[in-house]
């Protein structure tokens, strides 16, 4: 072992380790660590890699179903979608890097989640993203929106994976901490999934992709005396994405996966080479020897510490079958990517690194993973919100609708999604703008529906209801296009878990999510946690972003929200009590955020959804929209604008009826000849259903309000975001 100066308490603190955690390291090693070893422990035991604050609660989430092939714990979740195919998907956060450098932060976020998916043998077929920015008035917001959107597009477009949808929200709570959550869905043969458990003593460990540079090494640890090289400029901690190399890496890996060379494979994401090798060794119950000097390096003079902790992008680690190295190398040579044998699988159970023959770290694998801290952090339950105070409509409903559709919360996101290539791969069936996107399963007549959702203001008011609502709304979005919901991935974005109030939000949301997952048969198969999203004591809204997928067995039978015919009847499915607490109506027109969020009745949710899905599958219904932000009138207006067909709506004058955000509801547009049959079926199944309007004309009409022309409504709905982005 190389002789190094003793570790100081300051270095321990700079590595984000507590005194107790450092004591555990001493026990595990039976000696003092050197700096490289300290670095390895610090990244493995970081919140990001060890989930130390959330693990206790994450374990409570349901992760199993007959169609789940692989739940959380691997690079991504895998579900059986029939016909011998599997969908592999995950959502991940890249919040902090995107705030520092929005273009590269968002781009590398997309790159990272793509790698998680193709590592398991899937060709990525769709990207989505959930973006949350500060208030539009905040000085930084416009710059961050522009950079993040360009970065998401720049990476995904270049790699050639369509970005088929997502969310963009604004709220002052994100002023100091934006959220960039990226999701990728891939397609694989169900019997050709690749896992990360290393196996086969003596098998070669192979590094492929880009070279390793000093990207992403934490600034604080760089300041330590060991690396204080005064002649060098301050080293960067921002990773730069190279989507071109990623595209080559996808093709090379998939080509290699077509052979039988790969025993195990893992991408290098956060904590780079350290995390990937330790996880591969731990999952396989083996040891790993690495020759650090064999790692392809972009810069000269890199120390073992830097090589092990670098977060350079577009890299993978594999264990190959002995003797397959040359054939594998030929594939990576063809794609002009680096390929190097950097180590061997061993039976020692130790993770050992050598630099030019000298041992520079030697750590037992099992304790490095098993002894990682797990905290049951103190938490307090969020107190129940006070009842909603009386609400008086400030203006007539059509005037309210126009303001809402032309505001930051509900205006069209076209400016964003037109910067994303949504039709590359030529399998996109439903593009952004609907309840869920649909992509064809290549070469078949079946499809996958994909969506992301979360309503953070509900989660703030009542984490439990908010967590359940996020899952239920994803399930509803998939149902509204006719898909059978299969499973979800989650990206849990919260503030500082060391505050009991914040921890209470996390616990509440997870509990609510878990209940919804069970009630809807909708397990969590992958996910990620992002904590400490807090600046100057101001935490973000609790944001458990949910991404979900569902399957369509016949693409001819799916629904879309755009009205297709005149003289259709509009049927409202689900009960409307007129719940106005925590609605967009209150927030935007009355500047109020009070009352409880709409309650989620999971049994009703499932009952209503199954009814609607049945109608779509039977070919009876082809036009459907789920009700969410903004309520009934907003949903109806969206259907009219999308189809360019007017609507005449009738109902009570109560604002709760038109703007309430009661859950478990859908709007259907149905030819008059089918209406009676649908209403009879609904009555028989005890699903609330009522006719509330008729399609036709070029205006939106409600009771006795002044009608609005669709073209005028659309103009203001489309204008807000481009006007905002182009103003200075």
């Amino acid at each position, binding site marked *: 072992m190389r002789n190094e100066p003793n570790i100081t308490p300051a270095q321990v603190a700079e590595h984000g380790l507590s005194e107790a955690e450092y004591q555990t390291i001493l026990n595990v090693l039976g000696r003092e660590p050197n700096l490289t070893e300290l670095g390895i422990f610090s990244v493995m035991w970081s919140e990001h890699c060890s989930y130390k604050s959330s693990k206790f609660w994450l374990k409570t989430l349901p992760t199993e179903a007959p169609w789940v092939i692989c739940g959380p714990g691997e690079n991504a979740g895998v579900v059986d979608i029939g016909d011998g195919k599997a969908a592999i998907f995950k959502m991940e956060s890249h919040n902090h890097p995107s705030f520092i450098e929005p273009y590269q932060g968002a781009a590398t976020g997309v790159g990272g989640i793509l790698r998680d998916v193709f590592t398991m043998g899937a060709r990525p077929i769709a990207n989505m993203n959930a973006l949350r920015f500060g208030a539009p008035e905040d000085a930084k917001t416009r710059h961050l929106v522009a950079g993040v959107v360009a970065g998401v597009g720049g990476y995904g477009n270049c790699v050639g994976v369509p970005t088929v949808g997502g969310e963009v929200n604004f709220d002052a709570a994100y002023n100091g901490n934006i959220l960039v959550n990226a999701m990728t869905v891939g397609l694989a043969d169900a019997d050709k999934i690749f896992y990360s458990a290393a196996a086969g003593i003596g098998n070669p460990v192979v590094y492929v992709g880009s070279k390793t540079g000093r990207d992403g090494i934490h600034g604080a640890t760089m300041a330590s005396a060991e690396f204080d090289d005064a002649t060098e400029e301050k080293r960067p901690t921002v990773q730069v994405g*190279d989507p071109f190399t990623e595209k080559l890496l996808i093709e090379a890996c998939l080509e290699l996966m077509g052979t039988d060379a790969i025993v195990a494979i893992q991408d290098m994401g956060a904590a780079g080479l350290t995390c990937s090798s330790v996880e591969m060794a731990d999952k396989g119950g083996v040891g790993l020897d690495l020759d650090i000097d064999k790692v392809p390096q972009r810069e000269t003079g890199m120390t073992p510490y830097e090589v092990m902790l670098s977060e350079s992008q577009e890299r993978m680690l594999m264990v190959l079958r002995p003797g397959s190295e040359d054939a594998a190398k030929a594939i990576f040579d063809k794609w002009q990517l680096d390929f190097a044998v950097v180590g061997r699988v061993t039976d020692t159970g130790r993770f050992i690194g050598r630099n030019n023959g000298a041992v520079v770290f030697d750590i037992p694998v099992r304790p490095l993973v098993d002894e990682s801290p797990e905290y049951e952090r103190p938490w307090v339950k969020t107190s129940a919100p006070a009842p909603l105070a009386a609400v008086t409509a400030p203006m007539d409903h059509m005037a309210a609708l126009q303001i809402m559709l032309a505001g930051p919360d509900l205006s069209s996101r076209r400016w964003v999604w037109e910067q994303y290539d949504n039709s590359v791969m030529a399998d996109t069936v439903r593009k952004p703008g609907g309840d869920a996107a649909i992509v064809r399963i290549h070469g078949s007549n079946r499809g996958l529906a994909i969506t992301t959702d979360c309503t953070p203001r509900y989660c703030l008011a009542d984490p439990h209801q908010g967590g359940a609502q996020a899952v239920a709304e994803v399930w509803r979005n998939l149902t509204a296009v006719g898909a059978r919901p299969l499973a979800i991935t989650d990206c849990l974005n919260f503030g500082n878990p060391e505050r009991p109030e914040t921890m209470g939000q996390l616990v509440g949301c997870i509990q609510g999510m878990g209940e919804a997952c069970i009630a809807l048969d909708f397990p969590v198969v992958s996910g990620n946690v992002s904590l400490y999203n807090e600046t100057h004591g101001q935490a973000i809204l609790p944001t458990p972003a949910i991404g979900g997928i569902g399957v369509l067995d016949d693409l001819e039978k799916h629904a879309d929200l755009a009205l297709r015919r005149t003289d259709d009847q509009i049927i409202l499915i689900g009960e409307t009590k007129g719940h106005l607490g925590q609605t967009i109506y209150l927030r935007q027109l009355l500047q109020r955020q009070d009352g409880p969020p709409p309650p989620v009745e999971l049994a009703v949710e499932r009952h209503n959804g199954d009814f609607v899905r049945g109608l779509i599958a039977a070919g009876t219904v082809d036009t459907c929209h789920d009700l969410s932000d903004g309520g009934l009138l907003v949903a109806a207006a969206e259907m009219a604008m999308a189809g360019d067909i007017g609507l005449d709506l009738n109902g009570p004058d109560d604002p709760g009826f038109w703007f309430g955000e009661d859950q478990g509801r859908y709007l259907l547009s149905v030819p008059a000849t089918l209406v009676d049959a649908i209403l009879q079926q609904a009555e028989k199944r005890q699903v609330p259903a009522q006719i509330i309007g008729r399609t036709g004309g070029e205006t939106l009409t409600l009771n006795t309000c002044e009608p609005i022309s669709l073209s005028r409504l659309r103009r203001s709905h489309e204008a807000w975001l481009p006007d905002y982005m182009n103003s200075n």
Partner: protein
Amino acid sequence: MKARVHVSYKTGVLDPQGKAIGLTLKNLGFAGIGEVRQGKLIELELAESDANKARKAVEAMCEKLLANTVIENYAIELDNE
């Protein structure tokens, strides 16, 4: 006076464009090429005639707009220096 601002990635920041150019030059048969880095050149016409003041102004432009100092360096050349 004319100012030329050279913007380039900081040492250690991956330059994907430079990397791809290097690869292609190699494919075209050019040998002996080490690292390739691509930068930007921005030319500015300035009304200011005092070189010190001009440099200060261009520095401010670089910090505020022309370079992304999180990942880029800049160098300023004034034509009458």
